[in-house]
C-alpha cells in the first residue's frame, strides 16, 4: 500500500524504517544524549496536579540538578524536521518510568496507511499509543503529528491536537454513567456547535457504520452491552468527529472469532472509505496480517521489524519466526 518503495534492512537486533548513518551512509541528525525534553511526565489524568508550564520548568530544573546533568540547551536549528507527508512520526523516542520501556523507537505512518504494532505483552505497545496521543511525553526524542512537534505543547494545545485523533481503548472505556447515545455524542457536544438534530443524525450515521441498529442500542447503558457491541460503540465514539487518525488499543482481544472478523473488517472499512491513518496495537496476528499496510514488531524496547506482512512471513529471523508461531 506504500506509494514509494522503502529501504528495509531486516536484521535481528536492529531495524528501523529510517536506517541510520552506519547502514546507508546518509547523514542523519542525531539527538544528543543529554538533550532533554521538558515536562517528562504529562500523565494527564492528574495533569491538573502537575501544574502549569512554569511549575513544570521548576520541576525540570530540580530533576536536572538531581541527575547532575548540564541543564539542557534548547535543540538547535531544526536542520531536519519531520519527514514530509508523514501523518504520524516517532523519532528516536526514549521513555521509562521505574525501568525503561521504550528505547530509541522510531516509526512513520503515511496518510491512509494502517500500521499494526505487535509484540509480547508488556513491551510498551499501549505506551506508544499514549505517546502519539500525548498522554505521555517521551524522555527524549520527538513525536510529530502532521509535521507538528507535539512534545513541546502545553496541556491546552495538546487537547486541541487530540481532536484530530480518535482512540478506541482496550475495554472501549465507555462512560458508564451515560447511555450509548450520550457516549457517541460526547465528542460532538464538546467540540462542535452542532444542533441536537445534527448530533442525532451523526450518531445514527456512526452507529450504522459500525453495524449496530441505532434504535436498539441508543438508549442502553454500557453495562447492558456485550463485549463486541461495546467495542463497536467505542469505535463509533472514536470516529464521531471524523478524525484523520484512528488509534486502536487491542481492538479484537477477548472477542470470539466471528466478532473479531467483524471488527477487523470494520477497521479496514474505515481505512478504505474514509482514508484515515490508523495505528493498531494488537496481539492478533491473523487480523494484523489482514488489515496492515505495515507491521511493526516491538521487542526488547525497540522496533525490531518494520515492513509489510509479506516481508514478515518471508523473513529468516528466528525471533520473528517464533513469534509468528505456526502461522
Amino acid at each position, binding site marked *: 500500500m506504500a506509494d514509494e518503495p522503502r529501504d528495509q534492512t531486516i536484521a535481528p537486533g536492529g531495524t528501523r524504517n529510517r536506517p541510520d548513518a552506519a547502514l546507508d551512509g546518509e547523514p542523519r541528525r542525531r539527538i544528543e544524549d543529554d538533550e532533554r525534553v521538558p515536562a517528562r511526565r504529562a*500523565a494527564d489524568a*492528574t495533569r*491538573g496536579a502537575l*501544574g502549569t508550564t512554569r511549575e513544570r520548568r521548576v520541576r525540570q530544573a530540580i530533576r536536572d540538578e538531581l541527575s547532575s546533568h548540564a541543564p539542557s540547551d534548547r535543540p538547535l536549528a531544526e536542520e531536519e524536521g519531520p519527514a514530509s507527508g508523514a501523518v504520524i512520526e516517532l523519532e528516536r523516542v526514549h521513555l521509562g518510568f521505574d525501568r525503561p520501556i521504550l528505547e530509541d523507537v522510531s516509526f512513520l505512518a503515511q496518510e491512509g496507511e494502517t500500521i499494526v504494532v505487535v509484540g509480547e505483552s508488556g513491551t510498551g505497545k499501549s505506551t506508544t499509543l499514549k505517546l502519539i496521543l500525548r498522554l505521555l511525553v517521551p524522555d527524549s526524542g520527538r513525536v510529530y503529528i502532521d509535521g507538528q512537534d507535539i512534545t513541546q505543547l502545553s496541556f491546552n494545545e495538546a487537547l486541541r491536537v487530540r481532536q484530530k485523533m480518535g482512540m478506541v*481503548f482496550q475495554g472501549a*472505556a465507555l462512560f458508564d454513567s451515560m447511555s450509548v447515545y450520550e457516549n457517541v455524542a460526547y465528542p460532538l457536544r464538546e467540540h462542535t456547535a452542532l444542533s441536537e438534530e445534527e448530533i442525532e443524525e451523526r450518531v445514527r450515521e456512526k452507529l450504522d457504520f459500525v453495524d449496530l441498529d441505532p434504535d436498539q442500542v441508543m438508549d442502553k447503558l454500557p453495562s447492558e452491552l456485550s463485549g463486541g457491541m461495546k467495542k463497536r460503540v467505542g469505535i463509533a465514539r472514536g470516529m464521531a468527529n471524523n478524525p484523520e487518525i484512528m488509534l486502536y488499543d487491542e481492538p479484537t482481544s477477548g472477542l470470539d472469532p466471528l466478532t473479531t472478523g467483524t471488527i477487523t473488517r470494520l477497521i479496514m472499512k474505515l481505512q478504505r472509505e474514509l482514508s484515515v491513518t490508523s495505528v493498531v496495537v494488537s496481539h492478533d496476528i491473523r487480523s494484523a496480517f489482514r488489515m496492515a499496510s505495515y507491521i511493526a514488531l516491538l521487542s526488547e524496547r525497540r522496533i525490531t521489524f518494520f515492513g509489510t506482512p509479506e516481508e514478515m512471513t518471508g523473513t529468516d529471523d528466528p525471533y520473528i519466526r517464533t513469534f509468528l508461531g505456526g502461522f
Partner: protein
Amino acid sequence: MPSGGEAPAAITSPASSYLPGFLSTLNDAAKAKVLSVQEYATLAWNALRFIFARPFYGGDVVQQMDAIGVQSLGIVLLTGFFTGMVLALQSSVQLQTFGATPYIGRLITGSMIRELGPVLAGLMVAGRVGSGIAAQIGSMKVTEQIDALNTLGTDPIKKLVTPRVLAALIMLPLLTVINDFVGILGGNVIASLYVGVPSGLYWRTVWEQIASGGFSMRYIPNDFIMGLLKPFVFGGIISVTACYYGLSTTGGTEGVGTSTTRTVVASSVAILVVDYFLTQFLLFLFTP
C-alpha cells in the same frame, strides 16, 4: 529503588545512589510524600480556579449538589437529632449538680453550632460522599475513562473535580445548618421530657446563646460565621481529597478499594485536625 506508595508518579533519582540503602529509601519516601502534598495542593488550586474558567459544566454541578447534598440529608437529620438528644441527656446530669438546668439550651446551642454540627456533618459526609466520589473516579481511572476524557479533549479536572468541589462547598454549610437545627431540636425534646425545662424557656436560651457571641455587621451573629466557615472548609477538604485519591488510583478493583479507604481516613483525620486550627484562628478573630 522503591518510591512512596501514594505518589501518582514515581521519582527515581540516580543521584541518591551514593546514599546507603536505608537512607536512600528514606530519601525517596520523603520526596514522594512531599510530591503528594504538592500535587494535592495543585489539584485543589486548579479545582477552585476552574470554577471561573470555560467550559463550565453547570449541569454536572447541579447533579453533584443533588448527590452530595440532597442525598446526605437523611443521615444528617438522623445523626443530628440523636446527637442533640444525647448531648442533652449527658449534660443534664452535670447541670443538675450545679442547679443550672435552665442553661441546657445555651450549652447545646453553643456546642452544636460551633463544633458538633460542622464536625459531625463533615464526618458523615466524608464517609458517605468521600467514599462515593473516590470509588466513582477511581473506577473511571482504572477502566481508562479518564484517559478517554483526555482523548476526547476534555480536561478531567474541569469536568469531574470542579463540579464536585463546588457542590461540596455549597452543600456542606447547608447540611450543617440543618444538622445544627435538628440537634437543637433533639435537645429540646430531651430537655422538656426529662430535664423539666419547658420549650419556651429552652428556645429563649438558645437565642441568648447565639446573641452572646456578638454580632458582625450588626445583624450576623459571630457564632454563625464561625459555624459556617468550618463546613465550607471541610467541604473543600472532603471533595479534593476524594478526587485526589480517585485520580491517582492504580491497580484495578483492589486499587479502587484502597483509594476509597484512604479517602475516608484521610478526610476524617484532616477534618479533625483542621478543626482545631480553625477554631484557634476563629476564636482569635472573634474574641475581643
